[in-house]
């Protein structure tokens, strides 16, 4: 059933392509319908899976016998979590794109193609298939940004596309090498993930292939120092584009790191554990520090994404069950919260004021003019800081516990990152919404009143905040899916720190 998340999305693309050129309303309707249907399938499919700790095959047929590639879709608890996240992010992104008037149907066609590819990555249990879906997402990303973006959009789009493409080519090298070695061990060609995960590749081989694949995927996860696409890409992207980039695309990278690099090459992961943790911590602290001094509202969120994704990578680097499950939960949590933050900045503020510069925003008194936006941002900001009661707290807490067990120094430094996170969030809230407005400028703006926040925006905002609260108050909803996975044989060698 879960496979239909993919098919529905691509079906939506087809329907959109067949619509007449200027049918904007119809295009929105089709897109929303598709996303809601995809989410419904994802949610019911996920809840219907009785054993989230195991890999449950959805469909498996031979695809390219010469390579041993199968069309193998399956899901375990980690996939389920991320598939549900994708569904939510898709709906929210469409609601926040309700005001797109320029070539609406093309926008949503690219949008849904991206969503379909993301579903595909999370559900693929064949390496080639996973790679196909992974690369499939690059093209829609590029066009969404280059066509509908702002601020140096063509530069940002090309940078993102090239970074993604270089990353996926690093992965491709590792993939081909692993295929050849596996063929030698198995005696037949295979790209099936469940089969390869049982192999133990030679340790010397893992030592050089692991960093290749990990960095290849990590580029998209915002791994420092390959994160530089993220701020420019996020800022250049249209609102829904940034929401998807931060919400799900960065998760593709982290997911690939975990699912492919770490599970297939556990000894390699153990060997490179310290460098991984170092890069992750630098990402956390550096991202937060840079976010603190930005002049552009959206850059703050862009760098905060790098910082928060650092927690995901730190969680992965712990090689502890609690750290890994924290990392997966953080993927979900960050997907929701970052999406919301970008929505406030891009849709609620920028689309109305046409500026994201703090020095301009300070004079506007947006706290009074756009109370809904202000409240939403405060709530999302608080969630982003990691306040108990929101999903971010549970996730980062688990990551820190795992990090404390593995390398206490890293945990301490990451704690510094959290403190800086509080600082930049408060600074952004203060500057954007609650700076003292000079009466004259405030009056000036009353002559051109800002549009009130529309219904789709409110619905989407409440949806995302509600989800974050729900998971924060009741994390077991997701942890019941994630934690059993860590007990599965697939993660056994990884959690033992390899057999080194």
């Amino acid at each position: 059933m879960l496979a239909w998340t993919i098919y529905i999305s691509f079906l939506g693309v087809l329907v959109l392509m067949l619509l007449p050129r200027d049918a904007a309303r119809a295009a929105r309707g089709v897109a929303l319908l598709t996303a809601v249907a995809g989410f419904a399938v994802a949610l019911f499919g996920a809840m219907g899976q009785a054993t989230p700790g195991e890999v449950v095959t959805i469909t498996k047929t031979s695809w390219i016998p010469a390579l041993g590639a199968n069309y193998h879709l399956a899901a375990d608890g980690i996939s389920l979590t991320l598939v549900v996240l994708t569904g939510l992010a898709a709906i929210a992104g469409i609601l926040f794109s309700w005001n797109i008037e320029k070539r609406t149907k093309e926008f949503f066609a690219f949008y849904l193609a991206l969503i379909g590819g993301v579903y595909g990555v999370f559900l693929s249990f064949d390496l080639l298939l996973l790679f196909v879906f992974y690369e499939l997402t690059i093209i829609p990303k590029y066009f969404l940004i280059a066509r509908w973006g702002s601020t140096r959009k063509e530069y940002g789009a090309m940078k993102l596309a090239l970074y993604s493409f270089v990353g996926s080519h690093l992965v491709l090298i590792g993939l081909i090498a692993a295929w050849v070695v596996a063929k030698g061990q198995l005696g037949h060609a295979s790209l099936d993930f469940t089969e390869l995960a049982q192999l133990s590749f030679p340790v010397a081989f893992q030592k050089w292939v692991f960093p290749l694949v990990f960095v290849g995927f990590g580029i998209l996860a915002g791994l420092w120092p390959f994160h530089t696409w993220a701020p420019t890409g996020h800022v250049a992207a249209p609102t829904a584009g940034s929401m998807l980039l931060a919400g799900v695309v960065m998760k593709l990278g982290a997911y690939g790191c975990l699912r492919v690099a770490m599970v297939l090459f556990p000894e390699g992961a153990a060997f490179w554990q310290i460098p991984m943790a170092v890069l992750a911590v630098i990402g956390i602290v550096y991202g937060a520090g840079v976010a603190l001094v930005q002049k552009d509202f959206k850059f703050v969120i862009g760098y905060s994404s790098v910082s928060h994704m650092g927690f995901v990578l730190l969680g992965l680097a712990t090689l502890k069950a609690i750290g890994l499950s924290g990392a997966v939960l953080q993927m979900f949590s960050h997907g929701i919260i970052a999406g919301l933050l970008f929505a406030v900045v891009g849709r609620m503020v920028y689309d109305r004021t046409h500026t994201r510069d703090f020095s301009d925003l300070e004079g506007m008194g947006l706290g009074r003019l756009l109370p809904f936006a202000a409240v939403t941002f405060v709530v999302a900001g608080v969630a982003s800081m990691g306040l108990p009661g929101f999903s971010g707290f549970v996730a980062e807490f688990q990551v820190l516990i795992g990090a404390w067990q593995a390398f206490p120094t890293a945990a301490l430094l990451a704690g510094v990152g959290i403190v800086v996170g509080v600082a930049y969030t408060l600074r952004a809230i203060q500057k954007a919404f609650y700076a003292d407005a000079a009466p004259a400028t405030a009056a000036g703006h009353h002559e051109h009143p800002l549009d009130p926040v529309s219904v789709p925006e409110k619905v989407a905002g409440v949806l995302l905040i509600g989800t974050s609260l729900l998971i924060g108050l009741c994390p077991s909803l997701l942890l019941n899916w994630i934690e059993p996975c860590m007990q599965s044989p697939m993660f056994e060698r990884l959690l033992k720190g390899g057999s080194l």
Partner: protein
Amino acid sequence: VNYLQLLQLVAPETIVVMTALLVLAVDLIALREQPAGLRFGLEATITSFGCGAAILLMLSGHDTMDLFNGIFIIDPLTRLVKVALLVLTIFTAVISVEARFTEHVGEFLALILLATVGMMFLVSSEDILMIFISMELLSLSLYVLTAFNKRNIRSSEAALKYFLFGGMAAAFMLFGLSLLYGMTGSTNLGQIAAGLAGRGLDPLLIVAIVTTVVGFGFKVAAVPFHLWAPDAYEGAPTPSAAFIATGSKVASFFIMAKVLAIGYAGAEGRGGWHDLVAGWVPTVAVVAALSMVVGNLTAIAQTSVKRLLAYSAIAHGGYMLLGLVANNTSSRTALLFYVITYAVTTLGAFGVTSVVEGATGSDSIASFAGLSRRAPLLSLCMLVFLLSLGGIPPLAGFLGKFLIFSAAVDAEPAHLGLLWLVILAIAMSAVSFYYYLGVLKSAYVADVGEGAGDIKVSWATQLAIAVLALLVILLGCWPSLLVKPLSLALGGA
């Protein structure tokens, strides 16, 4: 065999020759006074039917024959490749209908058909004399096709360049082949290999290897024998360029693989990173590496789409040579899959370029601006073609690359010996993405200029291009459609 049997065995080739003559005759007798569009339409239809009949004959044949000691071979493999060549010829003919570069319609199509005959004989032969003769039939037709636009001086310049380079390369190749004959006393590839066995790498053989690689390297536009390609692609009428880039490429790669793998069997050497052993494999490996690097890096700087496609052709030639370097059955399967899908893709890209050139008068990247508005279907097809060339899944180009690269690494699984070449290829393929995306950026992102309306395209051209795009998607999603028959045919050969 008597003459009647002979005629039966070469019936497909005969049909194509007859079609060429028929096209000439119809053009001369009945259509002289008609407008060019009608002539092109009618004669392209005749061409398509002729090729279609030849394809049907080919598909119905099941014989495996070796006529006159390797001069003409009939087996499933050559049949498969010839079907691919004929299909490419049909699409070239359909695409050329739209172009208005000549009044000599009959001659143009007849030359395309004669070149096709040359290719068909080329792929069926394992005799160096026959190979050379069919290669010349093919090349001479292509030279004339390049010069076909008499109103454009660049067309003549391109043809002269192509001709001079080609003549030189043919001389090299003939020299190499004559050495082979001198050393072994045979013109049959299998017997040549048997004669060479045990000789070791003596200087004569080395010269023969090098000159052969030079000769074929010219045909497949590999660096450093590629200099004619960008000028020829740019100057030639677009349908001619498309034909040079596709059909001729398939045939040339096929025969190059055959000559090297069969004729020089035993003189392979090795191409591993720390494991270079002299022979034709390391020679080709160097040419492949150069082609990938030079082709891709030079393509970045191009502003004309046809020149860009030329450099991309050089780069893709490099990837394909990788399939030769690996030198085993699965790599040869991958090579043929790659070159056929590459030809389909490039033909489509040239088709769209031809339409854009017709509408805007230029093939610069800037003239593709707003194509997604002016011709949504063609623009979408161009997206498919260029992304496939760039190696984005699930399109045929990606699968071709994956097959070739994995086969190359798998050639020496113990030491991953050819990994260096594969890493280079993958790095360069990442570079290539940039310039393909540049064209697509123009088509999808740049705004339409003033007064640019919809581009009118005949339904036949649209259909042909759309079918090519569908083929690219189909072969990307179900590569086994082509991989399976290819590996069966190669395994049997």
